[in-house]
C-alpha cells in the first residue's frame, strides 16, 4: 500500500510540472499532505502514541489544511496573478521532471551496501530535485515557497524511511519544518507583499554587481 501512495506522490510531482495555475499548485500540496498522512500512518503505527499523534497532526492539520489555506490567503491578499509564469515551456518541465525521476531511480540502484527501502529513497530524491527545479524555473516568490514545501515533503518521506527506530530524528525534522515554514511564510511573504507592488522575483534583483 505504501508503494502505491508513494507512486501517487511521484505522479503529483509530474502533475506539478504541467500545472499552470497557482491554485492547482496549492491543491497538489494539500494532496501531498494527505498522501504523507497515509504513508506515516502505515509506516509508524507501531511507535508510541504521542509521537504518532504529533506526526499525524503535522501532516493533516499543518501540511494539508493550514499551509494551503495560508497560501490562498497570501495570494488573495496580495492580488497575485493566478498563473505560475514559468521560465520554461511546460512540456520541457514535464520532460525534466521525468528525467529527474529516471535519474533518482538510477541513483537508487547505483548506491549499494545499505539497507534502505528503495521506493522511499527514489521518491524523496525526486521530490528534492523537483522542488529545486520548481524554485529555479518559476518566477514568483510564492512558487518558490511551494518548491521549498515540496522539498520539505521529500525530506519527510526520507525520514519516514528510517522507520520507527529514529523517531527523534523525524520529530526534529518536523519541528524544523514547522518553524521555518511559519517564519518564512508568515513573516517574509507578507513583508515582501507589502513592500513591493507585485511578488515577483523581478523585484528582487536590485542586489547585483
Amino acid at each position, binding site marked *: 500500500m505504501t508503494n502505491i501512495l508513494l507512486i501517487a506522490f511521484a505522479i503529483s510531482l*509530474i502533475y506539478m510540472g504541467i500545472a499552470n495555475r497557482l491554485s492547482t499548485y496549492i491543491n497538489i500540496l494539500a494532496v501531498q499532505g494527505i498522501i504523507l498522512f497515509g504513508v506515516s500512518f502505515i509506516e509508524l503505527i507501531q511507535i508510541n502514541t504521542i509521537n504518532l499523534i504529533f506526526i499525524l497532526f503535522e501532516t493533516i492539520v499543518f501540511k494539508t489544511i493550514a499551509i494551503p489555506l495560508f497560501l490562498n490567503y497570501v495570494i488573495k491578499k496580495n492580488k497575485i496573478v493566478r498563473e505560475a509564469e514559468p521560465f520554461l515551456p*511546460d512540456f520541457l518541465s*514535464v520532460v525534466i521532471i521525468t528525467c529527474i525521476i529516471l535519474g533518482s531511480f538510477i541513483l537508487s540502484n547505483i548506491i549499494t551496501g545499505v539497507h534502505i527501502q528503495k521506493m522511499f529513497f527514489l521518491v524523496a530524491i525526486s521530490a528534492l530535485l523537483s522542488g529545486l527545479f520548481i524554485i529555479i524555473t518559476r518566477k514568483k516568490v510564492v512558487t518558490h515557497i511551494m518548491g521549498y514545501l515540496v522539498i520539505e515533503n521529500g525530506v519527510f518521506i526520507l525520514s519516514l524511511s528510517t522507520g520507527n527506530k529514529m523517531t527523534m530524528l523525524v520529530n526534529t525534522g518536523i519541528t524544523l519544518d514547522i518553524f521555518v515554514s511559519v517564519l518564512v511564510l508568515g513573516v517574509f511573504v507578507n513583508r515582501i507583499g507589502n513592500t513591493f507592488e507585485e511578488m515577483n522575483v523581478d523585484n528582487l534583483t536590485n542586489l547585483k554587481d
Partner: protein
Amino acid sequence: MPGLVFILIIITSFFFTGIVIRTKSIFSGRKGPGIFQPMKDIWRLLQKENVYSQTSSFIFKIAPDIYFASVLIAIMLIPFGTQKGIFSFDGDFVFFAYILAVGKFFSIIGALDTGNSFEGMGASREALYSFLAEPAFFILMGSLALLTGYTSFGDIFNGIHFGSYISYAIGTLASFVLILIAMIENSRMPVDDPKTHLELTMIHEVMVLDNSGFDLGLILHATNLKFAMYGAIIANLFLTPGREWYFSIPIFIGVQILFAVVVGTLESFIARFRMSHNPQFIFTITSISLLIFFAVLLILGKYF
C-alpha cells in the same frame, strides 16, 4: 471459446458511445438520446452512397476500409481473462500497437490525399499525438510483461492474477493510464473535442471532412470499436481467474459500462486544453507509465 471476447467487444461497441452521450446529457441536465442513437446514425450512413472528390486517388477510397480492418484485427488479439484471443503469440502486444498504427497511417495519408489544407493540419496533429502516446502504451505493457514474465496478451493477463494487492494496485494505475490513452487515441475530450465546429481547432474530425456515406460510417464505428477494445483491456485487468463465464461476462460488461460512464464524466467536467498544452499532457501519461515501470522493478527487486 476464443471468439467469445470478439463477439462481446462487437456487442459492447454498439452501445458504448450511446452511454457516453447519455452520461454527458444527464450531467448537463438534459434527457438525451437513447443509448443506441449513435448506432442508428451509423446504420443510416452505412446505407448511403459514397461521394468522392475528383482530385483524390484510390488511397482515399481504400483508407477507411483498411482503418476499420486494422481495428478489427487488433480486437482479435484481445484475450478474455484466462481465455486467449483469436490470435495469440509471443510479443503480440507489439503487433497490436503496430496494426493500429497501420490503420492510423492509412487514415492520415487518406486525409492528405484530399489536398485539403485543413485535413493536412488535422493529420499532422493526429500523427504528433499518436507519436507521443505510443511510448506510454509500450512502457505500460512492458511493466505488465515484467510483472508477469510473459510477452503475449493472453499470458500477461493470465499471469497477472496472483491475488496479492499489488496486482490490483498496478491494475488500477494501469487502467488510469489506459483510460487516458483511449481518450487520446479516440480524439476525445481533454485533447480533442468531437463536438467542435471550428476546423482550426479540430484534430480527428477535420481529417474526415471529405468522407461521406459508407466510409464515414466505417470510420465512426471504428471509434466505437476502439473504445470497446480499450475497455476490454481494462476489464481484463480485473477479471477474476478460474471463474465461469457467468461471472466473467457480467464483470466484463460492468467494466465497459463503468468505463463509458467515466469517459462521459470526464468529458462533462474537463475543459478542452489549449492546443499548445496537448503535448505536455500526453507526455505526462508517458511519465506516469514510466513511474509504474519503476515501481514494478522496485517491487519485484529486479535491478540492473
